[in-house]
């Protein structure tokens, strides 16, 4: 009986048990709420941190396989203990602060970077019962946490008293703020489709059909801009080793560098999770399969959490796949690609979604899905045709120019 209760709604089960216990000890109601929240948050954050340690191993192992190497394989089975060794090394390393650095800002920056990523876990819906809080402005909260991350990078770059660091920070911030626009615009599309900003609501709205199928273009734009937000290759101008040595964190050493590194990995995973939530049905999205009695176990919170983690891992892996197969893009190309291509395209997709969502609302589900999908295909084809025509024109003008030069 109690085990079934725990398996069906773990957080409520533990909360009720603890509430009973604490009331017995004579705590007031407000204090109990705070204590319960605090314990819940601590469990969630510790879980995120353990996952982060695992991600270090995953990242190194996967990059090794992409580059035809073995990766860490000395410490523990398959090198699994390697990240622990890394952490111990980072903690006992001498922490060098460059002379002339702005000490306070220099020390705040890595903490802020880690905080901005950890705070995302407050709204991450691991399952229908296991989640931090179901905020009604969750989608905007995601953007707000990103804003704090941007700030941490500019603080770190500025406080280091290093030209490369500052230049890296500037590039990174220009990159991040630019790509934030297509990201926010494509965030609006799940909001329109689900008619809510809460991540639980968006997940439940996708129980029948993933938004990635209703609006594949929105997903592609979100994916590209998410990679840019993360500052990962091919948008990793911030750490363009050949030009900037290491970018904004060049002067950081020891655990402070460790936090920048750890928060980058966790950020990538978290964005994989949000990709799953916004476009792939999050912990659910089985196309109605869970309603059949044979598959009812899919609604168990632990199964849902496993599904969610698997989807997030897949998103994380896709981000890594792009990272280790693409060369770095030059900054002028990158900004032009954003402002001249992604932003206009994302606005077109937004307008299309807003109008069609209204016009097709009366249709049956398959008609609605088909209409949405086809409209995206049409926009995609038209975009590619425009690009091809433009490319052809450019080639022609270059050819005539070369001809004129030869004559």
């Amino acid at each position, binding site marked *: 009986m109690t085990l079934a209760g725990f398996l069906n709604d773990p957080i409520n089960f533990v909360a009720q048990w603890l509430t009973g216990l604490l009331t017995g000890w004579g705590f007031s109601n407000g204090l109990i709420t705070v204590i319960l929240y605090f314990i819940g948050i601590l469990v969630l954050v510790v879980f995120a941190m353990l996952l982060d340690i695992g991600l270090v191993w995953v990242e190194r192992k996967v990059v090794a396989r992409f580059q035809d190497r073995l990766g860490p394989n000395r410490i523990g089975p398959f090198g699994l203990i390697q990240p622990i060794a890394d952490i111990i090394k980072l903690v006992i390393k001498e922490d060098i602060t460059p002379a002339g650095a702005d000490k306070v800002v220099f020390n705040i920056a890595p903490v802020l970077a880690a905080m901005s990523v950890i705070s995302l876990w407050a709204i991450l819906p691991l399952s229908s019962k296991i989640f931090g809080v179901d*905020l009604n402005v969750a989608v*905007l909260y995601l953007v707000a946490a990103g804003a704090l991350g941007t700030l941490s990078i500019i603080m770190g770059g500025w406080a280091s008293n290093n030209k490369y660091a500052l230049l890296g920070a500037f590039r990174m911030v220009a990159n991040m703020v630019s790509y934030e626009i297509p990201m926010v615009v494509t965030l609006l599309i799940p909001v329109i489709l689900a008619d809510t900003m809460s991540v639980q609501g968006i997940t439940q709205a996708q129980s029948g059909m993933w938004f990635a199928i209703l609006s594949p273009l929105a997903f592609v734009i979100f994916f590209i801009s998410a990679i840019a937000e993360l500052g990962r290759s091919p948008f990793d101008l911030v750490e363009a080793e050949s030009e900037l040595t290491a970018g904004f964190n060049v002067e950081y050493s020891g655990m402070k560098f460790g936090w920048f590194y750890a928060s980058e990995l966790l950020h990538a995973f978290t964005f994989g999770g949000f990709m799953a939530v916004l476009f792939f049905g999050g912990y659910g999205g089985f196309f109605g399969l869970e309603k059949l009695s044979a598959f009812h176990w899919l609604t168990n919170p632990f199964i849902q959490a496993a599904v969610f983690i698997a989807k997030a891992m897949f998103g994380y892996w896709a981000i890594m796949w792009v990272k280790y197969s693409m060369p770095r893009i030059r900054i002028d190309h990158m900004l032009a690609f954003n402002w001249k291509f992604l932003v206009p395209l994302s606005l077109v997709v937004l307008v299309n979604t807003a109008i069609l969502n209204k016009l097709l609302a009366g249709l049956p589900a398959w008609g609605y899905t088909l209409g949405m999908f086809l409209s995206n295909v049409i926009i995609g084809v038209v975009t590619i045709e425009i690009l091809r025509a433009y490319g052809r024109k450019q080639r022609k003008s270059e050819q005539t120019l070369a001809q004129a030069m030869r004559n």
Partner: protein
Amino acid sequence: MTADKIIFLLIGVLILVSALMVVTTRKLIHAALWLVAALFGVAVLYAILQAGFLAVVQVVVYIGAIAILFIFAVMLTRRDMRDQGPQTRSNWWIAALLGLLILAGLVFLIINQPDVERTAAVIPAGVDTLRNLGTALVSPDAYVLPFEVASVLLLAALVGAVYIAGFGKKS
């Protein structure tokens, strides 16, 4: 003294101290960072006031965009001054006096208003303020005109700023 009062006082002190640092600190970049702290405090106030949307937007717009713009501007106008020497005018004390006088006047006015000690009623369970805000912004009998005018204002700001900051580049 209830818990929300204590939180309010802590946040109020944070806001006022940060604001004072904004107007007094010598290094401009620190002033911009203190501004971020003050603005974050205001975002927390919005959250206490149950305006969650505004709290998040405050972080997105002010910290994510306006503060970044300030930091960029500070970096772009450095070479001279170096933030050395006095950063205030010689007659700063007049400004301080004026500020204190206005503050005294405002506080006098506020505490003499009737019903100013009122506390907030609980928002009824069925009221979704976020959705109401959306409806109010776009329905024709409410605020659709300010909504559209805001976009014209932003357009004017963008065109004007780009024109001013044209930096002599002609295409």
